[in-house]
């Protein structure tokens, strides 16, 4: 991470309607703990992405800012996911959807007080390559599901894409 990374990340959060998180986390007279935590989370996602996909791509604030210039909605959705989802594996899943992969299947298992598991399988829309399976047993990762676009294709059910949730006062 560059010395500018914390400031860039803070700018990204503010420009994507998440600035209130910084203020909320800051104690009077102290720096927010949020930024260092999110920077650490980004490093974990980068490592997990390399492990899972076998390719190294930067998940630095600089890289996200550059992507935001092209696809602001994707970066906004990813930043919201960082707040909502906690496991690096599931954040890699989010990024893979943003890269264009399709959501092939979702399995959700929940037993009150005992068990939670979420499995998402992604695959390219074109061709029949083997799917990528992402698992989580952290119930807070269930919050990611609300970002999926939902519809039908020729009358059949479809989850498609990962989109930002907009606050009412964010509407443009």
């Amino acid at each position, binding site marked *: 991470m560059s010395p500018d990374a914390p400031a860039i990340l803070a700018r990204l959060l503010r420009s994507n309607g998440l600035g209130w998180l910084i203020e909320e986390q800051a104690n009077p007279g102290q720096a927010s703990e949020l930024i260092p935590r999110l920077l650490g989370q980004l490093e974990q996602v980068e490592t997990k992405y390399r492990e899972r996909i076998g390719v190294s791509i930067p998940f630095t604030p600089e890289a996200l800012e550059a992507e935001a210039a092209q696809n602001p909605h994707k970066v906004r959705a990813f930043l919201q996911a960082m707040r909502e989802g906690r496991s690096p594996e599931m954040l890699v899943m989010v990024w893979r959807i943003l890269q264009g992969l399709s959501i092939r299947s979702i399995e959700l298992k929940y037993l009150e007080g005992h068990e939670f598991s979420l499995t998402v399988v992604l695959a390219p829309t074109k061709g029949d390559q083997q799917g990528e399976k992402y698992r989580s047993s952290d119930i807070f990762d269930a919050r990611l599901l609300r970002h999926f676009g939902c519809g039908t294709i020729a009358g059949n059910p479809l989850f498609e894409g990962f989109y930002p*949730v907009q606050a009412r006062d964010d*509407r443009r």
Partner: protein
Amino acid sequence: MQPVFDNMDLFCRINVQSDLAFEDFVASVAQHAGGSRHMNVVQNGALDISIHKNDIFDPLKSRSGEDRWLYFRYTLEIDPIPGTAPGGYVAAIGALLKSLWSSALDAVVSCDFEDRLPRLVPLPTADPIAFLDACARIVYRYWAQARFEDPTTGKRYPSYQEIPFGGVKQLLVYPNSEAEVAPNSMLRLIRSPQSILAVIDGSEVGDRPSLLASMVTDMSRMEFPRYREAA
């Protein structure tokens, strides 16, 4: 299949909503039609267009309702230039409509051959960038080899991942790379401030019109994360 135009009235009216003053609007129509103007008349190789202020223009009524187009500010009365083949005339009107829509102008056509003209389907959205993204993803469900082009810059995008959705105002979508070179069917997606406008060509090639219509229907049914209250 050659369209039949025998005994068909070729007169066509296009109502257009625009904030431009009359003189500027006439000049803009000349530009869209690629023609020359004389007074309130614009002519190109195929179209003879008389432009008038709409007598019943109503700024309020023109904003909503199924018949809002009746109250648009300007009206274009179009006839073929003598000697123009009906097919060429209809194609020229289609091109004019697409050009008007591409500038995000509200333009509604009324004539006996509407089914042979491109159709505009507005898809309202609060987040046009994200919705354009979703539309591109739906396209792949129908055309696995789809190719995209930004008609403003001429830049082509062979895959979804390469499209900078925040930077494109329009996307031309072709079924595959062959169609990109010799288009006979395409979908045009126009990003406007509060909607995506899908332009479906009036082409009568095979089943494409119904396929495009079904693609656009699936786009219109997409649901996105609901609004949350701001913290």
